[in-house]
């Protein structure tokens, strides 16, 4: 099962899944990722599921994802007459199919990941993110989009691959910035993907002990940063900054030790992607730009819809942006969810991020290095996704959503087997090491006197009555 998950992740990172249509006629979009999801389910059925042992798994993230899917279905069922009357049912149907694919992927990733595999999947994420970053940098320099071209060459017998939207020298009357898209259809999507991979690389850099590994992971971070800035999108700065802030909260002391790398990264970005650093200056007057003004004008313009259908919106997936005279392109996914699935839909969408963060927090503070770093990386990726959702219509691009669900699954796997509720007294008794992060603490545990409570995990010194209480709650 983990291999199947790794294969899908590779597909998401390296193949422009929303531009590849398999040559099969279906009532829904015949995009290649839908086939991959079906293959996951078939593999699950063929092998009788994942029978490897696993500990107690927190269900919050998966339940939140399920609730989000259910609310989306419900919003459409409630609004079926309107959606049919306006001729938007076909679109909703396709969007629901994609939503189901998201739901199945979330379930599969959560079920297939084990705590012992988190390190391997972290490395895989870093490797795939780095390959993607190299492709984006090459695309910016040459205009050659390797993801589209290689996919077309390989998949041409079974699928049609659309043209790449890449434009390194666009008509200034039509586009104000180059279109650097990587394996996606928009620069914002690839920027978010790289931002999701960045915490995995940064934490690998922090945890690396040999000089060679440090150099390799540092190079990966620099490449991802350069690629994110290459798209010349403000999101390429905002989301990585948010990710770094989250890491600073948890492992600030270790991260701050790396501050000289900022200058190295700046030089590296300037060399590999000349002019990309200029994106930072575009943040000057962030709230006064045309795109920011467009965002704020959305608030008033959507009020008639919000007031008319506040709870469940006008039906998930029925926001047809092709109808320019009817719907606006909302540069904020929360507004999009508010329109389509109402306040309940927004709450359900946001609850996924909150659930993932809540699940990951105890694991991120765990002294077990195999859990702490992936949990923290997943947590930072989820927060980055939540912030990116406020900056553009992120659900229009499937890749960041798949990676977000993967990050949620990483959070869940990292928390699998951790005790659910740890008595406060026991936690305060645990000595707080005054040096190193969780990873280093686990690598070099402090010697304990004989007979003292075992300080291995948060489950120390739990009285028998509380253990029974925990079991009953479970």
């Amino acid at each position, binding site marked *: 099962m983990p291999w199947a998950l790794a294969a899908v992740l590779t597909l998401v990172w390296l193949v422009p899944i929303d531009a590849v249509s398999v040559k099969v006629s279906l009532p829904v979009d015949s995009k290649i990722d839908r086939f991959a999801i079906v293959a996951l389910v078939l593999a699950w059925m063929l092998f009788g599921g994942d029978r490897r042992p696993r500990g107690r798994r927190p269900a919050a993230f998966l339940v939140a994802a399920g609730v989000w899917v259910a609310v989306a279905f419900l919003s459409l*069922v409630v609004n079926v007459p*309107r959606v049919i*009357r306006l001729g938007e049912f076909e679109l909703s149907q396709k969007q629901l199919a994609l939503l189901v694919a998201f739901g199945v992927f979330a379930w599969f990733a959560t079920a297939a990941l084990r705590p012992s595999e988190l390190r391997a999947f972290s490395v895989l994420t870093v490797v795939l993110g780095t390959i993607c970053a190299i492709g984006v940098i090459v695309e910016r320099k040459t205009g050659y989009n390797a993801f589209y071209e290689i996919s077309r060459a390989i998949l041409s017998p079974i699928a049609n691959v659309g043209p790449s939207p890449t434009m390194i020298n666009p008509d200034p009357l039509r586009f104000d910035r180059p279109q650097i898209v990587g394996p996606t259809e928009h620069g914002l999507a690839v920027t978010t993907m790289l931002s999701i991979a960045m915490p995995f690389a940064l934490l690998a850099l922090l945890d690396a002990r040999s000089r060679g590994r440090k150099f390799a992971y540092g190079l990966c971070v620099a490449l991802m940063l350069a690629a994110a800035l290459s798209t010349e999108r403000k999101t390429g700065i905002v989301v990585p900054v948010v990710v770094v802030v989250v890491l600073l909260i948890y492992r600030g002391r270790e991260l701050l030790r790396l501050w000289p790398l900022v200058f190295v990264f700046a030089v590296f970005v300037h060399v590999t992607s000349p002019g990309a650093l200029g994106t930072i200056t575009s943040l000057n007057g962030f709230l006064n730009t045309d795109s920011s003004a467009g965002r704020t004008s959305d608030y*008033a*313009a959507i009020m008639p819809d919000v007031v*008319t259908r506040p709870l469940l919106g006008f039906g998930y997936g029925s926001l047809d942006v092709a109808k*320019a005279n009817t719907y606006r392109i909302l540069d904020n996914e929360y507004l999009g969810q508010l329109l389509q699935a109402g306040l309940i839909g927004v709450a359900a969408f946001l609850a996924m991020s909150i659930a993932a963060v809540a699940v990951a927090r105890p694991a991120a503070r765990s002294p077990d290095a195999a859990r702490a770093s992936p949990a923290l990386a997943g947590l930072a990726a989820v927060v980055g996704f939540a912030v990116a959702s406020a900056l553009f219509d992120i659900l229009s691009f499937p890749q960041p959503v798949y990676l977000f669900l993967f990050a949620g699954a990483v959070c869940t796997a990292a928390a699998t087997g951790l005790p659910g509720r740890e008595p406060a007294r026991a936690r305060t008794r645990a000595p707080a090491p005054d040096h190193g992060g969780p990873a280093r603490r686990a690598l070099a545990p402090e010697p304990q006197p004989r007979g003292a409570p075992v300080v291995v995990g948060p489950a120390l010194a739990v009285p028998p*009555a509380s253990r*029974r209480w925990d079991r*009953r709650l479970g």
Partner: protein
Amino acid sequence: MRAGVYSRLLTSPEAIRLIGQEARIDPGLIYAEGPFESNQPRAAQEPTASERSDQVAGEQDAYRLQFQSTDTLPIITIFSQAPTPDEANRLANGAAQGLATYVRQLQDQRQVPAAQRVEIRQLGQPAARTVNSGVGLRIAVLVFVLVFAAWCAGVLIVTRLVHNWKTAGRLADQGEGEWPVTTAPSESDPRHSGGERSADRRELERTT
């Protein structure tokens, strides 16, 4: 250019009333929109709050008309939508005849000379067909999926609830399922370690 003006005229309440009369449809159930400036930048095409308010109010209407015109040709294209093909045909014909009637009435009122009058002519008969056949089946599938998912979730929740209930009952029968004790141990209860210690102390005092 003039076609655009007449298209806008067709969305007025008075014109819709005439269209309803011609099509034998309640004008209160008809919603008309257009023409749209499709050659404008997207930002200019997107609806403002007031425009969107009109659209939202009209979403409930089952009889819908959309008018399109170009700057270069004196032609208005009419798209109609109704619950049945026959009604859609009647609505499209009614729109063309309604516009002709409306313009004729206006010219009569203002006594426009015959040579300067505008003549509205219908260039062809509308051809209606069903565009969402099979939608009933798809809705049935959608509702089935939702109900099935809700049923599965319900079964899981109830099964878990029953299992936990039985487990709790079994633990209570075995004397293990009490709520965690939070009261301070009593001095007189020798089962508690504190009680045992004080009993031992009293025993020690007696012996000494």
